[in-house]
């Protein structure tokens, strides 16, 4: 039995080593293009590091038990009558509890304020309204209202104030790894900072994708996202202001509740 | 014969089985009622409209509590084979139940808030679901009354009576929670 323990333990170690190596070198996500996206990717990676030895342990026991003794005929004798009443279950209980608490704290609890927190003084406020089946984006600081594309300056903090006109939607930018539901009657927020330039044309994950089932054209409810330099952003704003004949929004509507009143036709 | 012995064993356990089944049913039902009560506080907050008819609310609450007393008396009566008292109290319970339902109907038709307001949604659905339980309880009581008239039930066997009256008490207890949640809560 002792030899079996050693052999299975060795199998576990080998599998774990392979697994951890893969975990370090495999890119799980396509390049995250926002600060919080990078944090989320990091949290994901940490969880994988924890998960690998758990996974390999179960696999090692399964595989080793199978290799050690299996038969297609009715076994001639019974297995060793291990009841599992002693300290092994207790040790297992303590270790799994400790592991669980560890990952609940890090990367769990520790990351919540960062990921879910709001930027109080963002460089840019973007108001988003979902409706079946598109998104309307407004830049109240820049008098740009209700465009169906999202353009953001790189390395600037952005706060999105999101709401919905009809049913639930979910504001998701896969390239940023961030999402929040759009709820009628409420304003939900996310704050983040794009860190890399790019556009939907070259990276399909740079899109606002509705991620909450919202009826007929749910899957098509997506608009392109571009992350551009400050200069390009300014130029784009200019262009929009020229094109828009919509009445500019007043300063007061910058408040978080602007969407409920400000943009209604 | 061995099978017969096992059968007798199950028979001996039958009262316990029935009791447990009934109480589990109440446990389950209480989850339904607490879902409704939760919804009431989530959508309408911890307040109530001033236009509530407090007198009527208090009156129907008293009527329902009183009906639990007569129900209890009916059960005691059949336990000592006092059929006239049993039937009398059963009838009183049904009548009080009717009075309660009538009170709810009045409440509904005179309410000054509308179904489509958050509080109205909670009020009408909570009282409605509860009243439907009262009505089903009354139907069961009526059946028990009819059977009792025809000589069913005795001190030796009255599970049908006991179950029905326990159910009646349960519905009553639900109202004990619903009444303050709808009529009294305010802060």
């Amino acid at each position, binding site marked *: 039995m002792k030899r079996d323990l050693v052999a299975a333990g060795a199998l576990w170690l080998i599998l774990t080593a392979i697994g951890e190596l893969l975990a370090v070198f495999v890119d799980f996500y396509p390049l995250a293009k926002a600060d919080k996206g990078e944090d989320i990717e990091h949290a994901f990676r940490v969880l994988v590091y924890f998960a690998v030895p758990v996974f390999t342990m179960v696999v090692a026991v399964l595989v080793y038990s199978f290799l050690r003794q299996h038969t297609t005929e009715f076994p001639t004798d019974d297995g060793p009558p291990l009841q599992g009443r002693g300290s092994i279950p207790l040790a297992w209980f303590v270790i799994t509890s400790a592991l669980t608490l560890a990952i609940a704290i890090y990367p769990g609890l520790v990351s919540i304020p960062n990921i879910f927190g709001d930027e109080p003084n963002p460089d840019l406020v973007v108001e988003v309204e979902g409706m079946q089946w598109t998104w309307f984006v407004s830049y109240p600081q820049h008098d740009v209202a209700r465009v169906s594309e999202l353009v953001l300056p790189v390395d600037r903090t952005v706060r999105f104030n999101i709401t919905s006109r009809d049913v639930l939607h979910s504001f998701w930018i896969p390239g940023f790894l961030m999402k929040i539901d759009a709820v009628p009657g409420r304003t939900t927020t996310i704050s983040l900072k794009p860190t890399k330039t790019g556009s939907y044309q070259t990276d399909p994950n740079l899109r606002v994708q509705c991620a909450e089932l919202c009826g007929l054209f*749910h899957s098509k409810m997506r608009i392109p996202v571009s992350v551009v330099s400050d200069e390009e952003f300014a130029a784009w704003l200019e262009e929009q202001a020229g094109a828009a004949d919509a009445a500019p929004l007043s300063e007061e509507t910058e408040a978080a509740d602007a969407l409920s009143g400000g943009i209604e036709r | 014969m061995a099978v017969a012995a096992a059968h007798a064993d199950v028979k001996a356990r039958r009262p316990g089985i029935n009791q447990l089944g009934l109480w589990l049913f109440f446990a389950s039902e209480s989850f339904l009622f607490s879902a409704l009560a939760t919804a009431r506080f989530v959508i309408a907050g911890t307040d109530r409209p001033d236009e509530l008819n407090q007198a009527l609310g208090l009156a129907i609450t008293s009527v329902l509590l009183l009906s639990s007393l007569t129900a209890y008396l009916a059960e005691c009566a059949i336990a000592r084979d006092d059929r006239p008292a049993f039937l009398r109290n059963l009838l009183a319970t049904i009548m009080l139940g009717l009075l309660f339902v009538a009170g709810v109907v009045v409440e509904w038709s005179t309410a000054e808030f509308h179904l489509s307001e958050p509080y109205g949604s909670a009020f009408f659905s909570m009282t409605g679901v509860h009243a439907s339980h009262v009505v089903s309880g009354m139907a069961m009581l009526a059946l028990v009354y009819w059977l009792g008239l025809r000589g069913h039930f005795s001190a030796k066997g009255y599970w049908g009576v006991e179950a029905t009256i326990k159910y009646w008490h349960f519905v009553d207890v639900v109202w004990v929670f619903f009444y303050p949640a709808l009529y009294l809560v305010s802060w």
Partner: protein
Amino acid sequence: MTHTAEREAPASAWSALVPLARGVLWGLAGFGLGVALIAVLRAGAGRSAWSLELSITFGYALGIVGWLFGVGVWERWGREWFGLSTKEGPTGWQRYFAFTLDHKVIGIQYLATFLLLFLLAGLFAVLIRAQLLSPEGAVMGEGTYNQVMSLHGIIMVAVAVASIIGGFGNYFVPILIGAEDVAFPRVNALSFWLVPPVAVLLLTAQAVGGWDSGWTAYPPLSLQNASGQLFFSLAIITFGLSSILGGLNFLTTIIYMRAPGMTWGRLPIFVWSMFSAAILALLFTQFFAAAMLMLILDRIADTSFFKAAEGGEPILYQHIFWFYSHPAVYIFVLPGLGLTLEILAHFSRKPLFAYRWAVGGFLGIVGLSAIVWAHHMFVSGMDKRLIAPFLVTTEIISVPTGLIFLSALGTLWMGRLWIRTPMLFAMGVVFNFLIGGVTGIFLADAPTDVNLSDTYFVVAHFHYTIIGAEIFALMGGIYYWFPKMTGRMYDERLGQLHFWLMFLGFNLTFLPMFWLGLHGMNRRIATYTPDLQGVNIFVSVMGFILAASFLIFVFNLLRSLVWGAQAGADPWRARTLEWQVSSPPPVENFPAPPVVSGHPYDYGVPGAPAHGVVGMAGGSDEVSR
């Protein structure tokens, strides 16, 4: 003792239809009455007599009563309420089509019904995968896709709720505890006969426009939907009632009907898992029913529980819904895990490792499952202060789950693994549920869930827990108990072929879905961005292989049912009580009352007494077949 029931001359085949036909007729009469009632009331109030959803709701409420009474409640039960004597039901094979009280018949009724529904919803899955062969959708429009996806979802959820519990729970819990039936046989039959209306409602919803809000039916979308949504809600309430009554019955049965000597410490682990699932079904199902009730009222009675514009709260629905639906995943999976442990012990020829800890695991999951629901709502826009506590409670649930893994691994360790089809499936469950469990951590962890929620990562995760654990356990259980239920052996080679095709097909279908989720594919979409097409084609092809494996399964079952070798009472030489009686067991289960004096899994324990002995009439071999 032989089956007295089967000795009587079988009536003509048509007579089997009589109870069903009466049920339908009385059901239609009830429906008409309900509609008429509403018509009278509305006409009295000066409104049009027919209001689609209101009339249908009331018609259905009375219709279901008519159906139940017609199909057998009246003859076998209701007459008693009015002091009349009840009538016996049909005997012979006709009892499978009637309001029959024998828990074994009800178990078979459940199994057959839900296997059919499983295959049907599996066909919908094939349609879904066919659609996703192309980024623009290969076979249907978005509208049809959303409806097919919704139907697939809710039917599979129903299968997950009721196939193991209703099938094996009914057939085997009484036998495993040494009882002759469940505590409330008539309630049991009632539970089953509530199911056909559910299937009819879900499958006829298309006639009134269907519904496309998935199995979750979130408002406001579900308020905006066509009347199919109403059918959905009525179906859920009906099914919920069935499941609540089932839970009540199992709890009472396990508490009161155990044979002498069947202490709580000697209960087979499958019974413990059923006990746990029954608690959850009994209590939490009411919340799903309540959510549906509020949805119906919002639709037909002008209330505004979930209407933001009137002051209602759409997010309230999600709280109520998940307060049931998270425990529901344990209703799905706990009986599957119990069944898996059962099979692992018998086929490893070893005691179940850490039995008491495993029981603690089941009960611990029951306790914790009430306080984890909002992990489905980390990005729903709910109060952000709720995120941290629900993250912690959810992570903690992996501790009791870990105890079940401990039991499985300790049992396998150094066991004499007898590789038969049930054992392969049980080991498959351990592997699949491991992946399901580990990936659950990523979803429970709020920061990573921000990206993963509502993506194919979630789809992969819950298919690993539901198919990977429960459906694999269901298949293992079918092969394990097939000889007991039918008296015949299945074909071992076909069984193992089914396992390997299903195991590989399953893993190759769903592993890549994790990748899809990480790379920007969200769930419930009829079309997707073209960069994901390659992996989607792979997934679809593997999914077709997974689907094909069930053809082997069905073929094996049907063939073995007729031509399988005689199985004998105890083909697995297992210790639990069901193997101590004939295959199939006699109507009263035990020809003589069983006496239990040992633990069910004491394989190889020196001097351990038999788990149970069936009466003085002799051992299992003398039981007539």
